[in-house]
């Protein structure tokens, strides 16, 4: 394990502590065309998963659009940080968002 990877794997992606707003829900619950802002990654999510989601651009405060679903509704393409990424619903469920108009 290099100094760098030790450094990076020690990162903690903590919940932001923002209380469940009226509009808060899981990213997986949104329909194509919806726009939301990321609150945080759920507490119970494995840290390796949380770190990778963070590195992929799913960071608190970032705007995310639901682009489209695959046949049979899984996975789903999201537009985040300027690029389109497909996530499975299982992962999208880990991300807490607040709906935007």
């Amino acid at each position, binding site marked *: 394990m*290099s*100094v*760098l*990877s030790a*450094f*990076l*794997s020690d*990162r*903690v*992606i903590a919940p932001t502590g923002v209380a469940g707003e009226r509009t808060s829900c899981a990213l997986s619950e949104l329909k194509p065309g919806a726009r939301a802002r990321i609150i945080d990654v759920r507490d119970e999510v*494995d840290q*390796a*998963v949380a*770190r*990778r*989601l*963070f*590195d*992929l*651009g799913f*960071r*608190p*405060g*970032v705007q995310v*659009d639901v*682009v*489209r679903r*695959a*046949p*049979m509704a*899984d*996975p789903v*393409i999201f*537009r*985040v*940080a*300027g*690029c*389109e*990424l*497909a*996530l*499975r619903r*299982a*992962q999208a469920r880990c991300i807490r968002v607040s709906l935007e108009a």
Partner: protein
Amino acid sequence: MTSATGQTAGHARQSEARVALVGSPNSGKTTLFNALTGLRAKTGNYPGVTVSRYEGAAEVAGRRVVIEDLPGSYSLDPISPDERVLTDVLDPLNAGVQSPDALLVTLDATTMPRSLGLLAQVMQTDFPVCVVLTFTDELTRRQGALDVAALSRAVGVPVLAVTGGRRSDLVALRELLSRPQEWARPVVPPPHAPMEVAAWITSVLSSARYELPEGDARTRRVDAVLLHPVWGTLVFFVTMFAFFQVIFTAAAPLQDAIGSLFAWLGGLANSRISNGLLSSFVSEALLGGVGGVLVFLPQIVLLFLMINLLEGVGYMARAAFLMDRVMSKAGLEGRAFVALLSSVACAVPGIMATRTLPSARDRIATMMGAPLMTCSARLPVYVLLIGLVVPSGAGWGPISAQGATMFGLYLVGALSAMVAAWVFSRLGRSSGPLLPFSMEIPPYRIPSARSVALSTLDAARTFLRKVGKIILVTTIVLWLLLNLPARSTADLQAAGVNPANHTAVSAYVIDHSFGAAVGHAVEPVFQPLGFDWRINIGVLASLSAREVFVATLGQVAAAETPDTPTIALRTMRVEEGPRAGELLFTPPVVAALLLFFLYALQCMSTIAVMRRESGTWRWPAIAFGYMFVLAWVMGLAARLVVGAVT
């Protein structure tokens, strides 16, 4: 860390600086690498692992700089062995791999909020860093904006925009590459705590007056069709079907030409070399072996051309997206589809591609299924066997019957691979965190012809090298097995064979060769499938590589009748037993052979790469065992079913 980096640089030859390319997948990293190094790139492997290593020299200001194309990754925090290589190379304390002297980081200008996260991580290392911005033209087209000079000031390292590896853009880059020690260093390195990194990214983007581009309208319109639940799925299957029709119809004339060339060369050798045994060795073993393999090069080149084109355009990611749900039924993820599709070319790269799968369970499961995908080495076998029983003219409109049979074999192979992967995924189900599935869906882009050509050439070269090493040696060993012990005129006369009758002599030599003994010895095993000793020799020989089966049968046939293999095989008759005198290659026997080759792991290269990738002999042993049993049972079933129908 500074001293360690200095030490590493000291090890490198003073005249040759090493610069490594770091960037996320789809960031234009490989295009830049090809533009800088051209055809001088060489492929290898990182020590201990089979992640491909691309290295090439670039001429900058009269100096040679070695450029290394590191595996693409979204993060230096590795979740797969592929990504671990990147972290290892960037670790100056890791003695296993040579660290570079400086890093070029390619950042896709259209995805800056994400890309800057990777840059922040790269800048945690002590290497001099230079940023190459790619796709700035696309950024402008999609109404985004970015001030390159301001970005450079904000991050504290040199930033250059290079569009599609354009020569004019490369001038300034080459100039910079000649003196990495002088690159500007940031006064304060970026932070590494997650929320601070997020704040750093926001501040850098606002300093650089960055405006996020709009979604690509062209991509959105195309995706509305290509990712549509009904049309998209339809297009996917039509694309895959067209894939195979092209391989068959477009490659045929080229293959015929190569076939004729080697037949002509063989004839030439026969007429020039007076020694009978030697001339037969050169024309049959050497030229026959090389030609019998080269003849399939057109198909391989076409296949890789299409795979690389689809990859470059961005369709492969879409195919994986469409297939993800289906793959998840097999306990795998959409990316395993790419590994399995690569196995259509060859199981060796396919098994190597499994390292893009983050979970060890998925990797093993995919490896266990991948060899069942119809690889290019099966093509020669299938083409020969199908040609024996399905007439070439038959068909329905533009669809040829031979092509349709082939497609069916591909389909059965693919389904069997999925079932096998599912079974092994089930067996290997264990605890451990479910690693996140994510797949970038890049905008549709026109791939650089150079990149497509280079990776196609690379694939062809790899195939030929593999061919050169294994197939040729096997063909020669086989020729020796089939032609030794050599018979003197006295031997022949003693056996009642007329030494002047060439055909009779050949038949006698083969019937009493070492190879025949092996073929006869295993006859009880394969007798239920309808294989005779001559087929058995081919089956055994194909263990080194499947395509050897063709060369062997060709040799067996050529030794008995001086015609082309197909015609000779069509008239081959069973020599003994209850079927004596009947045609050997009847539809039931050919069906048994096809199914046997569909399932059996007749490939030492696959076994070797499996051993390397799984780190143990256990998995290749299991794979070989279960596939042999499956092949035997399926072959028997096919013979019985086809026998009942015809």
